[in-house]
């Protein structure tokens, strides 16, 4: 048992280490934890892979313990299957129309629904030009375990804000969810390395789908392949590979 | 089984007609529709026949193969029935629908032939307990327009009439083992006696009367039918009530009586026709497979 205050110290000590399901941390009486984002500064926020059980904090996924000051903790795991989370943006494939909604496959356990009206400027008369088979970049409006997830292509103020159906061209690839998070992190080193290589458009969905378009098909393919191989490489290996590509060796 | 939708008004019309012994197509209650029989229509079988009755069409092929007698009756050969309900006949046969009907039809055929006299099973035995002829009777439904049982039974009788089983000799080799030798001469073959093969008559109860060879419309007006397998002597080898309704005993007795009468009368013209066709031999005019 850790002493009061020492609990967070123990947790912080473990940051960056690999934990497995069943690992536990005990809270002292004064320490509280909040499951909601709107935590007061002294409360710890329990992120993905962690769960509160009574007065304990229990690990439920294997991975690396991460910490974001002041007291946000989560497990960074290399998971392939995406689980819908409210507010996250994903790339989905329109698989069917049902009534006045589209059914969208986003790689989760069930299809999400996407209303005809959830596009910028769409009205009952003016329906968006989206066909079955099209790719959409959309955000989760509803995502919880009790309900069918629902996507929208507009933000709170009704703007597209970068979301909507994709145009022609480009290539969709699938990468690990861990890589997606690294790509989306502020000042992502992979992204910086790529930018130095050659200009390309990159749309990253939290569901592990990445859409790439560069100036030529050849360059698009190179970027796609580089990204997919990033998953299994250390930083040095990656930088070495990027250098070789830049030199035209590959 | 293939069904059609019949409106209430049509039902009343059909019912009243039958009450007055006048059916929609002009027949009286115990008349068959036009029937065509053609034998030897499939070359790779030992016997075959095609029968059409109205728009119902069935094809029967018989293959004779050497097998082992059943342990309980070592001195007899046996028959195997298989009814294939092709999805061509009616779209309802697609998937499991056809399979179930096929099992029902073939089970009934086993019952119809489950007696000692229909086919001389002892004659199919080659050596007791070891070898016998097995006749595989394959029925293919080409088109369904009601009254499948009757059409199938006529086709089977015709195909059995047409069946030629190669003659076999038993020879013993040096070590005392026995071997079956088939005759090399394709014309050296045995024919089956089909005299006692029964024909099925289906009687469909419509209103207070019953009709023979019901069309699909007439069937839709009926709650139950009786099928009766009758030999040329009038012996009944199988009766069976089919359909979801019930029948009162008196009408069953009327129906069996009618069935016997109609069935008995069916045999003589059929045999005559078969023999006539046989005598024409190769010269006969082929109507064509689906003619």
């Amino acid at each position, binding site marked *: 048992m850790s002493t009061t205050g020492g609990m967070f110290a123990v947790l912080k000590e473990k940051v*960056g280490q*690999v934990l*497995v*399901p*069943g690992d536990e941390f005990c809270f002292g009486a004064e320490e509280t934890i909040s499951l909601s984002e709107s935590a007061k500064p002294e409360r710890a926020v329990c992120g993905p*892979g962690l*769960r509160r059980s009574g007065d304990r904090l*229990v690990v*439920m*996924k*294997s*991975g*690396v313990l991460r910490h974001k000051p002041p007291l946000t903790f989560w497990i*960074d*795991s*290399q*998971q*392939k*299957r995406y*689980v819908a989370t409210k507010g996250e943006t994903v790339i989905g494939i329109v698989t069917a129309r049902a009534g006045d909604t589209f059914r969208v496959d986003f790689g*989760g*356990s*069930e*299809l999400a629904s996407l209303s005809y009206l959830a596009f910028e400027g769409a009205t009952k008369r003016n329906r968006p030009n989206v066909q079955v088979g099209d790719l959409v970049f959309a955000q989760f409006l509803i995502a919880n*375990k*009790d309900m069918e997830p629902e996507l929208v292509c507009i933000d709170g103020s009704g703007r597209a804000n970068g979301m909507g159906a994709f145009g022609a061209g480009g290539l969709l690839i699938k990468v690990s969810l*861990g890589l997606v998070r690294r790509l989306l992190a502020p000042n992502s080193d992979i992204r910086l390395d790529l930018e130095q290589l050659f200009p390309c458009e990159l749309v990253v969905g939290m569901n592990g789908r990445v859409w790439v378009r560069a100036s030529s098909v050849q360059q698009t393919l190179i970027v796609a392949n580089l990204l997919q191989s990033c998953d*299994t*490489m*250390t930083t040095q290996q990656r930088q070495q590979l990027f250098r070789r590509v830049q030199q035209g060796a590959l | 089984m293939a069904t059609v939708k019949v409106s209430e008004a049509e039902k009343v019309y059909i019912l009243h007609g039958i009450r007055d012994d006048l059916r929609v197509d002009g027949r009286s209650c115990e008349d068959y529709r036009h029937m065509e029989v053609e034998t030897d229509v499939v070359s790779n079988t030992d016997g075959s026949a095609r029968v059409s009755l109205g728009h119902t069409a069935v094809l029967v092929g018989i293959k004779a193969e050497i097998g082992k007698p059943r342990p309980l009756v070592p001195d007899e050969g046996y028959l195997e029935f298989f009814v294939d309900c092709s999805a061509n006949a009616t779209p309802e046969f697609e998937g499991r629908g056809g399979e179930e009907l096929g099992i029902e039809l073939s089970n009934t055929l086993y019952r119809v032939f489950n007696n000692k006299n229909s086919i001389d099973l002892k004659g199919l035995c080659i050596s007791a307990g070891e070898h016998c002829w097995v006749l595989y009777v394959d029925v293919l439904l080409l088109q369904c327009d009601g009254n499948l049982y009757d059409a199938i039974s006529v086709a089977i009788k015709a195909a059995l009439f047409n069946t030629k089983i190669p003659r076999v000799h038993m020879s013993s080799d040096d070590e005392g083992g026995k071997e079956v030798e088939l005759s090399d001469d394709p014309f050296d073959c045995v024919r089956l006696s089909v005299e006692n093969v029964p024909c099925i008559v289906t009687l469909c109860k419509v209103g207070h009367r019953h009709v023979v060879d019901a069309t699909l419309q007439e069937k839709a007006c009926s709650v139950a039918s009786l099928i009766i397998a009758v030999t040329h002597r009038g012996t009944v080898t199988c009766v069976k009530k089919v359909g979801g309704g019930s029948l009162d005993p008196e009408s069953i007795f009327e129906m069996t009586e009618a069935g016997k009468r109609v069935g008995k009368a069916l045999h003589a013209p059929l045999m005559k026709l078969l023999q006539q066709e046989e005598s024409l031999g190769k010269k006969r005019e082929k109507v064509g497979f689906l003619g």
Partner: protein
Amino acid sequence: MEVSAPSNVSLREFGCEQSLLSRPDGSASFVQGDTSVMAGVYGPAEVKVSKEIYDRATLEVLVQPKVGLPSVRERSQEQCVRETCEEALLLTLHPRSSLTLVLQVLHDDGSLLSCCLNAACMALMDAGLPMSCLFCGVTCAISAYGQIITDPTSAQEKESRALMTFAIDSKERKVMMSSTKGSFSVHELQQCVAVSQRASERIFQFYRDSVRRRYSKSL
């Protein structure tokens, strides 16, 4: 005949690799001596209406033998593995979805059920499915001379007069699953459970080391 438990538990050499298959959402191979099992996990995925459970995920386990079709024996193993996994997984977090665990036996040289359990646990972890604890499988054989042999080979299994496989949880080291063959006394059973609990410590440490190796690149 009184059984004698070895003072230190001996296990064959273990090996494990996670994430080695690209199609499943989680995968692992587990090797115990010459016994080896490959596990793949799919899900949480869409569930058939007939199998849908309104408040939790539906788990299906398939055991594929090295040769031939799965038989009644595999069905019994599937049941043991499935109910063990169901206890460890937090299935209520993914209601109305399906999880599928496929265990392909690559080679059987004894202790197969425990190897299946170990492969299953590593694959579930790799898939990132929420779990309340880990579990491991331990097989014990009681030899004709009354010795307890942990993690026996096929030959040792054949010569044994009793064979027991347990699944042990990582939280309290209690018995989650038990499957036995042959007859044995209560005392022998207690000894085997104790030995298995000790063995489980080593296996859980091995799990932790394997996972650490896997995440070494992202540390």
